[in-house]
């Protein structure tokens, strides 16, 4: 029988498996809900700053929801803070967020700090990853997912997005320089998390949405940075996925040019249309997080089954999950996998031991 780690890795690579895995990658798409925090005693905001609390919460998410992975951190502010942004840690039911940008002009980017992977919350995440990798090695063989913020989204945490978007037209070289510096830093951080024991790389770049940038600027600014990250970290990580928010239909061609086997989408993008237009990518997604918050287990199971029947390779939430989401709803999403496997008579793949 295939273990959870191999199942996820093969699914993200577009390979055949017995059934799709169900995951909550972490980062912006984490399932650290209040109920899980209360049951594990690992609470926000402490879990953002203490590696033991962070890993305990990640283990609790997996155990209580039934998701088939471990993932940290639980926010998108680690890199921004390390590079100089002011960040509030939020509270039990609201996530950390940026409260002050270190830059007021794109050309000032040399003032940014480098991410020091051995200190601050970058080190917290690395240590949590190593604790999780250790825990997973003890029999569960769960995949540990390292979550990085995508270059463009990180840029919008370091400077007011309106200034950044304007500069794309007026000072494009400065924007390229800023993004190159950011990308270098993300690659370093990604290497540190890999050394700590992470198996799968997830890059979430919600601000690189095709709806916001359009195809031309996505291709000019977002795509090369994402691809450089994927190239330089790609061979080291066993599998990788990229999450981009918003309607992707304007940038289907550019999505096809991403150097990743798997693309994670939110609920406004149609799975069927994405698969039709970008046939060689495994699709990760896209159970509505609003439904997870407000729906009941039956409706959530139905929505998850719909995603699976539309052909997602990996079942995952579509977007950020409210900390007030009921645990039973997340459990219903996880259980949908079994219903699907039973109902669809998925052909059992012949698994080679070295695969």
């Amino acid at each position, binding site marked *: 029988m295939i273990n959870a780690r191999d199942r996820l890795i093969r699914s993200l690579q577009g390979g055949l498996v017995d059934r799709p895995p169900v995951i909550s990658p972490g980062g912006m798409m984490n399932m650290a809900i209040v109920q899980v925090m209360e049951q594990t005693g690992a609470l926000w905001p402490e879990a953002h700053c203490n590696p033991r609390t962070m890993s305990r919460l990640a283990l609790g998410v997996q155990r209580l929801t039934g998701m088939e992975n471990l993932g940290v951190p639980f926010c998108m502010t680690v890199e921004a803070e390390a590079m100089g942004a002011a960040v509030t840690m939020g509270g039990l039911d*609201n*996530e950390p*967020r*940026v*409260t002050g940008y270190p830059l007021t002009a794109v050309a000032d980017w040399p003032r940014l700090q480098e991410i020091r992977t051995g200190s601050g919350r970058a080190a917290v995440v690395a240590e949590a990853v190593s604790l999780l990798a250790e825990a997973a090695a003890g029999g569960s063989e769960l995949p540990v997912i390292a979550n990085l913020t995508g270059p463009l989204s990180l840029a919008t945490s370091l400077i007011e*997005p*309106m200034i950044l*978007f*304007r500069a*794309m*037209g*007026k000072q494009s070289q400065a924007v390229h320089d800023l993004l190159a510096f950011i990308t270098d830093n993300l690659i370093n951080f990604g290497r540190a998390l890999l050394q700590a024991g992470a198996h799968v790389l997830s890059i979430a770049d919600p601000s690189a949405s095709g*709806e*916001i*940038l*359009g195809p031309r*600027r996505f291709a000019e600014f977002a795509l090369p940075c994402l691809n450089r990250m994927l190239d330089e970290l790609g061979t080291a990580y066993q599998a990788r996925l990229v999450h981009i*928010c*918003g309607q992707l239909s*304007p940038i289907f061609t550019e999505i096809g040019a991403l150097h990743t086997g798997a693309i994670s989408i*939110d609920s*406004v993008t149609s799975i069927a249309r994405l698969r039709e237009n970008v046939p060689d990518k495994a699709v990760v997604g896209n159970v*509505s*997080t*609003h439904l997870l*918050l*407000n729906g009941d287990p039956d409706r959530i199971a139905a929505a998850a089954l719909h995603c699976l029947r539309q052909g997602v390779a990996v079942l995952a939430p579509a*977007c*950020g*999950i*409210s*900390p*007030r989401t009921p645990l039973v709803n997340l459990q219903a999403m996880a259980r949908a996998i079994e219903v699907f496997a039973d109902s669809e008579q998925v052909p059992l793949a012949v698994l080679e031991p070295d695969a």
Partner: protein
Amino acid sequence: MAVEEILERLTRGVRDMDEELAAEAAQDALANQMPALTAINDGLVRGMNEAGRLYETQEYFVPELLLCSDAMYAGLGILSPHIQRAEEESRAKVVIGVMQGDTHDIGKNLVKLMLEVDGFEVFDLGRDVTPADFVAKVKETGAELLGMSTLMSTTMDAMGVAIRMLQQEGLREQTTVMIGGGPISQAFADLIGADGYAENATGAVREARRLLASRGAAVR
């Protein structure tokens, strides 16, 4: 210089993201004794509306729309000091902001921009705004319209809270409530009892006009 030509250059300057052209054409408008408000409405605003149409048809995206607005403001900066007081009309007031817990304000800023272009007086509360702050600002300004935005499904339910607070304050009847943002839909607007929803910034302005007109509110 022909009036039409100046207006066309104002329009083109904005639509084609050409700040210098917009500013130059604004100077020419003044030099040719064109009323400032004509140059603004029939030149600059027309250009911004064309930009809005290109945005809707996905030829333009957010960066382009921002560059168009820069060109518009370059022209406005030159023209607005010359608006005759009598030319100014009373404007409908809008309170706008992003829900508490959310710092994504790109969409909100676009809506604000397009509302201003269309002649609304906009009170922008920024982001991370509590329902109580929205209601307090509506009360303070006597705004006809409240616009709330969020990109995060985690914060959208606070919109319903704000609407209930408007009711408690006795302001619901006189305030048109519109909502928008990534996870928002018409169905969600109906669910929480908002008056209107729009998918994008240009749609929001049309919907705002339609809703206010249907309430018989004096607009412009």
